[in-house]
Structures are given as structure tokens and as C-alpha cells.
């Protein structure tokens, strides 16, 4: 594999956004995902190869997160580095040179302002080649329904951190299933379990972002 591509992947995994970024300490002063992606494109390395490097980097950090070797801040930094790469790749997505795997409508349910879980999922899912329509936090079910209507074939992700907002999550899943029974819904959040997810009528549950990617890729491949 091209050295530049390997370095991009390494930057994504370690959350090195650009040369100016002080994080991580061990890479201070080094070029980051931003500069290296620009160099790679200038060197005529294909956007698909760069996207794959992103995916590999995010997958490695996602696996380390699942093993409790790194935590939310490190994962957020990796996602930020990935975003620096994606900013360069955006024209290729728009032109169709790089194809997205599918569309994923995502939001934190009504009454819950926590964005960590939702943002982590967004960043990791985007890094794995999906287009994410991020509805934000405190999202009412009507907003989810509108987004589904406007995004045919999408998969929906609902996030919540508070035990108290599980009720709203359940209501939202049920309303989606009544109006759009074919739409697949995955839920996630600290207070949830697979059992609770299935009881509320969701099609999937994941306790970490990598699990959401696995779910989406499986649906997409089916």
C-alpha cells in the first residue's frame, strides 16, 4: 500500500487532524490527515483508496474502543481526523466517483440533549462510507418521519443517553414502524440492552459505533 495511504490511516486512528493540532502529543508538529490527504490526491492516489484508509483507521480505533483500550475522547478525535479527510473527498462523492453505501438518518430522541453517542456513531458510520443525515439532538418523532419520507431507502438510528428518554425512543420506533414498516431502525445508548431494543420494536441494537457499522453493512448487503 502507498506510504501516504498508510500514514492517512494512522492519522485517522490516532486522531491527528492536521499539522497545527497539538493532539496526540506523540505526533505534535507532524503532518496530519488534512495535509496528507491533499498530498495523496495531488499524487493521483484514488479517492477510493483514501476512503479505505479512513475506514481501516476508524475500524482499528473502533475495535480498540470496544476492547476498552481507548475511550470516547480518543474516538472523537479519530472521527475529527476522519472528517478532515472527508472534506477533501466530498467533491468525489458529489460527482459519483466514490459511491456511498447508503443513507443513514440519525438523531438523539426527544428530551435528550446528549450528543456524544450520536456524534460518535455519525462519524464512524460516515468514515465507513455511508451518507449520514444528522437530525441533531432532542429530535421529535415527526422530524424523524419527515426525514424518512424525504430519504427513500434510508436506515434510521436513534440515540439516547438518559434512562428517562427511553420512553420517547420507544414511541419514536413505534411511530416509524407504523408509517414506514419496511424501514430498518437501529437504536443505541448507555441505558439500552438488546432485549429492550427488540421489545420497543427496533431491528437492531449496538452498544458501540462499530456495531452500528456492522448492522448497516449487513442490511446493505442483504
Amino acid at each position: 500500500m502507498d506510504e501516504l495511504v498508510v500514514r492517512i490511516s494512522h492519522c485517522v486512528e490516532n486522531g491527528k487532524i492536521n499539522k497545527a493540532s497539538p493532539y496526540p502529543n506523540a505526533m505534535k508538529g507532524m503532518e496530519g490527515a488534512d495535509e496528507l490527504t491533499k498530498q495523496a490526491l495531488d499524487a493521483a492516489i484514488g479517492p477510493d483508496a483514501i476512503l479505505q484508509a479512513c475506514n481501516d483507521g476508524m475500524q482499528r480505533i473502533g475495535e480498540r474502543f470496544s476492547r476498552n483500550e481507548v475511550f470516547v475522547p480518543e474516538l472523537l478525535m479519530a472521527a475529527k481526523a476522519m472528517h478532515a479527510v472527508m472534506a477533501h473527498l466530498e467533491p468525489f462523492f458529489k460527482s459519483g466517483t466514490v459511491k456511498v453505501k447508503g443513507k443513514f438518518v440519525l438523531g438523539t430522541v426527544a428530551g435528550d440533549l446528549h450528543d456524544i453517542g450520536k456524534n460518535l456513531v455519525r462519524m464512524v458510520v460516515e468514515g465507513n462510507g455511508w451518507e449520514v443525515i444528522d437530525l441533531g439532538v432532542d429530535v421529535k418523532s415527526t422530524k424523524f418521519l419527515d426525514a424518512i419520507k424525504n430519504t427513500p431507502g434510508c436506515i434510521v438510528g436513534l440515540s439516547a443517553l438518559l434512562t428517562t428518554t427511553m420512553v420517547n425512543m420507544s414511541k419514536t420506533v413505534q411511530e416509524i414502524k407504523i408509517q414506514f414498516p419496511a424501514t430498518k431502525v437501529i437504536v443505541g445508548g448507555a441505558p439500552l440492552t438488546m432485549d429492550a431494543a427488540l421489545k420497543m420494536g427496533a431491528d437492531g441494537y449496538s452498544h458501540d459505533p462499530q456495531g452500528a457499522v456492522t448492522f448497516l453493512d449487513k442490511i446493505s448487503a442483504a
Partner: protein
Amino acid sequence: MTDQQWITLQKIIKNEIVQPLPVGFIIDCPWLPNWYGINILDYFSNDELWLKANLKALQDFPDVMFLPGFWSEFGMCTEPSAFGARCIFPINEFPHAHKVIQSVDDIDSLPQPNPKTDGLLPFVLNRLKLAQPKIEAAGHNIRFAVARGPLNIASYLMGSTEFLTTMMMQPEKAEALMKKITLYLKDWLHLQMETFPSIDGIFLLDDIIGFMGEEEFRNFGMPYFKELYDANVSVKFLHNDAPCKVSAPLLPEIGVNLFNMGFDITLNELQQLTQHKVTLLGNIPPRDVLASGDVTKVREVTTQLVNSLQDKSKIIFSCGGGMPPGVSSENIQAFIKAVRT
């Protein structure tokens, strides 16, 4: 809490086995208003209903330690309100506060709140002052100074993603924010203690701890928690129902001696992680069992929990987290019975 309950709590913390086995729950706005039959906004806005709801819980479950007891609060809005956060109060949903820091540059100009006058804090305190004679007439006392923890408040003021990435990118700004919040919380806790001399405990709630690795927690959490718990009180209580394996070994060093955790860890494991120095309040699944299960399920899971313990000292039986919405009186009774038989 009554004098007897307070003595019992202190005995448990001092490693004495008490009989019958103790039961305690954190109760606040997610459970109490609807259980009492009123909507959440009425609970927040009507002092009499707030008091009656609390008294009714104590009357119905006299053997349960309700923690902190007579918690005067406005949900997640309480502490952020003093920084000027926009607070949203739907009629029968949980209130939430919007962030006030739009960029890291706002941190330096963020005002230092005065707990005596700012946001909802005067209302919190005055409600307790007005209710104090009736609380004492019912045989109870105000025992805890209560606040959301500094990481939790930082996340509300800034947005959790923004705060956690600021920790990594501009640590000096994150530290400045934590210092400002900690100073505010110290003022707030001390004001509560000054106002109510019966207070002999500090209760902080902070689930952002659970998202951090050890290095981040040691840098951005631990020093501030230590400062807040560094007070002359006998009970130092922490709630974090997010993951706690990283922070649990550090709890004794922080000064915490009572801990309410989530349900994703066993009490046996936590006893090991905390070197058996911390009293544990937990931890059957709050929503899936205590709220959604039937009496049989509650009894079964609670009995499993009791029987799973190799050492029942320094344990108060509860759910993993605060009492969730929708828990019936029957399920609470089933829980108590299962612990005590």
C-alpha cells in the same frame, strides 16, 4: 432521612453489617411526580405538591432510605441555569438546559455565578427553607448538599462532544472551565451547608466520568472532584451510572465513600475495584426490571443479586442508577421483600 436512618447509613459506611439488610433509592423528578399522580411541571412549580409527594414516598416506604431525601431540584436545569442557560420545561417531560458556550473563546468571559441569587438556585434553597419545619415535623432532616458534578455541568454548558474534544485539543481551556465550575460548585455546596446545619453529606451526580479514560479522568476530573469532596462531612456520595471500571479504583482517593453505579457491572467486581473501601448502592436493572418487570421478575432478580454477594457489608440494595419513571409501589415492595427474606 430520619436520625435513625442517618445513623444506619453511617454504620454501613463504617463496615458494620446491619439487619435487616438495607434498601435505598435515589428519588427525584423522573419518578416521584408521576408516581404521586401529578405532572412534572406541577412538581417543579408548586412547593406544596413537591413536599406532599416526598412525604408520601416516605410514608409508603418507611424502611427505605431515600437519597438524598427531599431533593429540591429542577432536573438537569438546576446548576446550568446559574450560568444563564436557556431552560426548557415541557409540562410532563424532563427539563433540559441549552448550552451557553458556543466556542472555546466564550469560556474566559463566562460569568462566575453567585448561588445566592443566580438562576434557579435561590428557588431550590428557598423551597427547602419553607419546607424545613414540615420536613422536621415528619421526623426527617435535610442531610445532603446536592449538585450535578463538574464534568456533567461542563458538558451541559458546552455540549459533551465539544467539551471532550476541547480536553484533547485545548486542555488549558478545558481546565479553565473546570476551575470556574468547581469554584461555583464549592460556593453552591457551602451555601447549602451554611443554610442547613443538619447537612452532613455531599451528593454529586456525574455520568460524564464514564466516558473518559484514566489519563483524562486523572487530569480533567479527579482534581476537581477531590476539591469538592474535601469538606467536613461524613457521607461523600457519587452517582455515575455510565461505565465506571476506569474510575472505580480511584474513588477512595477522591474521598467518595458511597457510590451508586449502573447495572452493567457486578457489585462483587466493584467491591474489588474499590478495594472494599466504598459503600455501594445498587444495582438491579432500573428500567428493564424495576420499572418494566412484574413483581415476580423483580423478586427473582433481586434475590439473585442478594445471593450473588460474597460479602454483604458496605452494600445498600437499590437499582443501578436513580429510580426510573414508571416504577410501581408493588415493585418497590417486592424489591424490599426480596432483600429482607
